[in-house]
């Protein structure tokens, strides 16, 4: 090659690199003419809905520049009531999750939707659907049900099986036995003066958590104080909030039912009870009888049908505030039987094509079914899912599902209220909604699309009504009506044999496993153990001594299947009961989900239990080392009797008194948190994370103890009482962090906020060293830029970030700001001559029980809290004068007044 040739090549290369940086070939249009009513960076709110286990819960999507960035509650929806739970809060990250499936994948690698449709059609059409099985989770969507109906009309052989890992089979069975048809019991906690929980967790994770918690909190606010008794195998949220709680295994619980039946007027034997339980039963019986018409017994979902039947009988006798409604889920087949029958057919080779939509039976199916093995016997398997999972790993075809915020949906809430859920964003990837997925089986073109199908299903609504229903997020008067049922017959549960039992509970973070791919969910501390990125089996300390293990040691549990996982001592656990949380132990589900904890579902069967020590140790990271408060520490979490007041502390004299606010002083912000209402659900924790661009940092960093959550929820227990205490920044008037910062990055503003100037921070960390509340968070590494998603391109995650909140750099201290961006947005509106709505922080907006109140010092909201006899400030004696203050926890365990 001569000199000229080389020069030519260099010139060509240079020209090519210039050409690489050019605009798109097509004409692009700058946003010179703004569409009416839109401003760049302006927040718009849209009503929509998200499903959990098939039940819709209304949400309000915050959309900025066509990007949904945060989900809040929808006041009009009875399953949201304007509040959220952690599942709603983490869902926004699911939308932008880099692990999402993006294109259909066939047996030969990446494929297209038409290819999948053709393959399906060719397989099922000639046989008129014979051997085609559609397996879904719970379906309450009228449109989806209509499409399944249409599919069956076209292909009569089609079978639809719906299955949820957390089923309501036992409750339904008891209702069927009592009333001849399946019915759903809906306790009205707002009207109940006395509540007895038989291993029930109405305030715990699930589709009805928000509604139950709101109802419970409404009753708890009203005087005279109500009383909640809890009998449970392992501490739950409801048990923590109960006024009287006794740990009871299945045998004790059944025995307690016998005693209660006697006390409520039925005869029968009285099996022996341990003393604390006998006391509880006697007190409960007295209170229940005394509060006829206002007394309620709730049986836990996973209790045997007989316990449900007993509760139904007791509620009949007590004329309890409880409604019966026809099940929202129209499919009367028991979940477990349905799946078992399907799996049998799969094993027998009677299933030709299996289409799984948004369900993960290979992970969560009962072990005796051998679902994963059965899948191998089905000639064609199609799995539609948002994320890779155990089922999709075993399927030939993988169909990426849209996020609910990407397409049109509808569905019913737990009370039957129907929502039409509008999309807030165009699908990010080449995905289909579950409605479109069903259409795909029939129509290679994929049907007319989700919008047309939903509109068709709601053709009864006129255009105006439709618009109104979509904008409001609920279709008016669609709630199920309460049915008048007679008294249920008395059924007494048989006493199970004494011995070890294993109990499965939904994780408050991952539920049945469907949120395991979500980094925020994994990093959200468990309400009870505060464990993150994993979960231990929970055992009574004495049982552990008997087994020769201590917290962190591995145990092997066998029942149907076998798991090996670390164990954790938990006071308040019943003897002989081992409790496992579901949702962990995922495989084939990506970097976030895989390898944390063990899969509890493999124990989900009726069989004898064997528990043994296993080799090794894993200390699951817990963010809280000490739960027990004693001695002087007890003042951190005071517990009062119903009418007791906090001891008045004399005003402390100060050499540096606060200057009195002048007439034109800006509003002074403050927060008041009622620990008597906080159920520790963590909705606020994740809401704060979503609103304030708080990074998830991963298990290794959590293990070092570098949590970034601006708001933590402490759980404390002391002599029979337990409770939760959310701790955000106290915004102290005399903030210890301010004078110690050498560069004045921690300063006070005129609105009473203790603000952190990120740009000024040099990272001495002195402020956190001097913060008695430990609420400041430091970016030890580049957390905002780091990826928890492995090799996947994580650029999409940045689209979730709130444009009004700085993304913090490495080496910078950060902390709760009282959502200063919301305060300032209201200030801007005031400056522009508008009247902004009340400022609500993300945590206060999320709170299902409205335990967190936010406002100015002179607002009713705050002034009334500060005037309450239960009012106290955390570590008041340090003279920090916190703006975040608390209302003390109450416990109503004495004689009824």
């Amino acid at each position, binding site marked *: 090659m001569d000199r000229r040739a080389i020069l030519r090549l260099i010139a060509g290369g240079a020209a090519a690199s210039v050409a690489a940086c050019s605009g798109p070939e097509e004409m692009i249009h700058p946003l010179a003419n703004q569409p009416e009513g839109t401003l760049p960076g302006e927040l718009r709110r849209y009503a929509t809905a998200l499903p959990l286990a098939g039940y819709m819960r209304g949400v309000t999507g915050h959309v900025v520049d066509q990007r949904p960035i945060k989900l809040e509650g929808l006041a009009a929806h009875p399953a949201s009531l304007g509040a959220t739970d952690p599942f709603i809060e983490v869902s926004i990250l699911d939308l932008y999750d880099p692990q999402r499936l993006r294109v259909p994948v066939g047996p030969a690698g990446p494929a297209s939707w038409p290819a999948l449709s053709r393959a399906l059609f060719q397989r099922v059409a000639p046989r008129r659907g014979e051997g085609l099985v559609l397996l879904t989770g719970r379906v309450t969507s009228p449109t989806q049900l209509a499409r399944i109906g249409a599919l069956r009309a076209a292909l009569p052989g089609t079978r639809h099986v719906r299955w949820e890992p957390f089923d309501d089979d036992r409750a339904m069975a008891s209702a069927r036995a009592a009333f001849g048809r399946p019915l759903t019991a809906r306790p009205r906690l707002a009207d109940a003066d006395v509540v007895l929980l038989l291993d029930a967790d109405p305030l715990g994770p699930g589709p009805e958590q928000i509604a139950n918690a709101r109802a419970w909190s409404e009753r708890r606010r009203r005087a005279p104080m109500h009383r909640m008794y809890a009998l449970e195998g392992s501490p739950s949220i409801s048990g923590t909030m109960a006024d009287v709680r006794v740990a009871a295994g299945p045998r004790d619980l059944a025995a307690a039912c016998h005693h209660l039946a006697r006390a409520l007027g039925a005869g029968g034997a009285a099996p022996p009870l341990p003393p604390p339980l006998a006391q509880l039963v006697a007190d409960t019986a007295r209170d229940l009888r005394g509060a006829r018409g206002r007394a309620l017994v709730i049986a836990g979902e996973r209790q045997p049908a007989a316990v449900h039947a007993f509760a139904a009988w007791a509620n009949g006798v007590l004329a309890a505030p409880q409604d019966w409604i026809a099940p929202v889920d129209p499919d009367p087949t028991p979940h477990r039987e349905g799946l078992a029958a399907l799996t049998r057919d799969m094993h027998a080779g009677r299933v030709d094509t299996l289409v799984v939509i948004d369900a993960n039976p290979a992970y969560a199916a009962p072990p005796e079914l051998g679902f994963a093995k059965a899948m191998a016997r089905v000639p064609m398997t199609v799995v539609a899912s948002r994320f890779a999972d155990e089922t999709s790993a075993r399927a030939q075809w993988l169909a990426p599902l849209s996020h609910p915020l990407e397409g049109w949906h509808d569905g019913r809430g737990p009370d039957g209220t129907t929502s039409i859920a509008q999309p807030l964003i165009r699908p990010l990837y080449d995905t289909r909604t579950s409605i479109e997925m069903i259409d795909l089986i029939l129509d290679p073109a994929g049907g007319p699309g989700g919008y047309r199908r939903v509109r068709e299903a709601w053709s009864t609504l006129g255009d105006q009504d439709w618009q109104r229903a979509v904008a409001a997020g609920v279709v008016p008067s669609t709630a199920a009506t309460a049915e008048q049922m007679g008294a249920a017959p008395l059924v007494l549960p048989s006493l199970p044999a004494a011995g070890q039992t294993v109990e499965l509970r939904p994780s408050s973070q991952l539920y049945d496993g469907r949120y395991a791919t979500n980094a925020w969910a994994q990093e959200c501390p468990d309400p009870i153990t505060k464990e993150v990125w994993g979960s231990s089996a929970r055992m009574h300390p004495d049982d552990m001594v008997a087994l020769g293990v201590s917290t962190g040691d591995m145990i092997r549990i066998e029942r149907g299947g076998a798991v090996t996982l670390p164990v954790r001592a938990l006071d308040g656990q019943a003897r002989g009961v081992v409790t496992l949380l579901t949702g962990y132990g995922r495989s084939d589900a990506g970097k976030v989900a895989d390898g944390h904890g063990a899969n509890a579902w493999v124990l989900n069967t009726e069989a004898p239990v064997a528990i043994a020590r296993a080799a090794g140790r894993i200390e699951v990271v817990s*963010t*809280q*080392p*000490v739960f027990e*408060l004693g*001695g*002087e*520490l007890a003042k*951190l979490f005071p517990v009062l009797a119903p009418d007791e007041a906090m001891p008045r502390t004399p005003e402390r004299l100060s050499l540096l008194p606060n200057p009195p606010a002048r007439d034109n002083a800006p509003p002074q912000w403050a927060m008041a948190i009622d620990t008597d209402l906080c159920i520790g659900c963590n909705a606020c924790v994740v809401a704060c994370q979503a609103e304030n661009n708080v990074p998830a940092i991963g298990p290794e*960093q959590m293990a*070092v*103890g*570098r*949590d970034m959550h601006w708001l*933590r929820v*402490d*759980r*404390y227990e002391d002599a029979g009482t337990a409770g939760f205490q959310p*701790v955000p920044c106290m915004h102290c008037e005399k903030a*210890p962090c*301010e*004078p*110690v*910062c*050498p*560069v*004045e990055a921690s300063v006070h503003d005129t609105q009473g906020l203790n603000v952190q100037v990120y740009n*000024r*921070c*040099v*990272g*001495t*960390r*002195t402020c*956190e*060293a*001097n913060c*008695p*509340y*430990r609420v*400041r*968070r*430091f*970016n*030890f*590494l*580049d957390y905002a830029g780091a990826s928890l998603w492995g090799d996947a391109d994580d650029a999409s995650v940045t689209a979730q970030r709130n444009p009004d909140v700085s993304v913090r*750099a*490495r*080496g*910078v*201290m950060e902390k709760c700001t009282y959502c200063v961006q919301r305060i300032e947005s209201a200030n801007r509106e005031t400056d522009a001559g508008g009247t902004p709505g009340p400022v609500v922080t993300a945590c206060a907006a999320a709170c299902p029980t409205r335990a967190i109140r936010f406002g100015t010092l002179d607002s009713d909201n705050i002034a009334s809290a500060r005037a309450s006899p239960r009012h106290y400030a955390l*570590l008041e004696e*340090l003279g920090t004068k916190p703006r975040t203050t608390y209302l003390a926890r109450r416990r109503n365990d004495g004689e009824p007044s």
Partner: protein
Amino acid sequence: MIGAHVVPTDRRWTLPSIRTLGDVTDAVAAPLMDRSAGRAWWLAAIGAAVLTGIGALAVGFSFWYGPGLWGNNTAVVWGFPIANYVWWIGIGNAGTLISSLLLLTRQEWRASINRFAEAMTLFAVSMAGLFPILHLGRPMYFYWLAPYPNTLQLWPQWRSALVWDFWAIVSYLLFSVIFFYVGLLPDLATLRDRPGSRFWRRIYGVAAMGWQGTPVQWRAQERLHRTMAAIAVPLVCSVHSIVGLDFAASLMPGWTESIFPPYFVVGAFFSGLAMVVLIALTIRRAMELEGVIVPAHFDVMARLILASGIVMGASYAAEWFSAWWGGEAADLRVVRFEFTGTYAPFYWAMLLGNVAAPQLFWARRLRTSAPVLVGVSVAVLVGMWLERILIITDTLSIGYEPSFWRTYAPTIVDFLILAGTLGGFLLLLLIFGRLLPVVSMHEVRKLVAKEAEQQR
């Protein structure tokens, strides 16, 4: 006993091997100018350089990835860097105090040890000065602690002990350099005038700044030296008080104690003396200075270590007492945690090193026994380092909120950075030993003359 050739003599601070003033100059300057560096020096220098390099690498990694490479967590936000800083600056204390306080109190024996003690101060403060910058989350902006003119018209927070500290370190370092140099001038001139390599003599000549030894110059030098010494004593006390205030000006249990400032001054002197003893033992042997650094010096220093050890013990007792007497639950919790908590073995080790080990010096024989001196000095240095880290971890691990009690575990990077500064300190000392007279020749000459006069 130190030195086999101890012979009875009336002279207390020099040996008979030093007879004339010229002997002093020869003894000190010979290893510098007449002999080339030996094998031992090279081995030590290479070892120290390697250690320094490893430390620099660890610092580089920390700058690149962030403070997340260390063991610090959200509760124990400070760790090794701050402990190392307090420890190093404490070591610096002894050099200044030996030079200035003993000069003011006319303790002539200090002449044999003040030079290298001052050099040690310089190097220790240099090592200490690295850490406040290094420990920052954003070290590139360390200068924001200074009130430099800027368009935002922002000044530092004058109420913050860290700003006081910034000034304390800067002024201490500048002062130490000048004080060292003023004391060095006559000796530089001596080296200039001594036969030897032309190149080095030129350099010494320039550095001597025209020192001719005229009475006017001597008077000026002595006056300046003495004045600076008078400033040095309060300065060094204030520096260590301010270091104590980094902790005490807070509201954390175990830190808010009024005893902290004096207790930090004594602690600093204590650890510094231990380091001086180690260095004195080394150079005495390595540079054949048995004639000027004599057992009596060690005897005096051992007495000082014993006295400071007792004060340290009293300070600890005062801490425990005030926690008990005050009855504040948080303070009691910290004291209980010190004795029984996660770091209890280290706390006991600290008491052993700082309080128990110096008690050996009650015995006169042990005060001049090299192995005992080395053992106790190392015990004191380790004990004082443990004290520095425990002050941080004990308080921050067990603050007011039990839900946030977290323990601290250092990482390899933490240790490498500490090792790196040890290497750097050693390397600087080794270079110093080859470049400058490790003993103040003009002051020892004065001492010899005076002792000779007394003999007569």
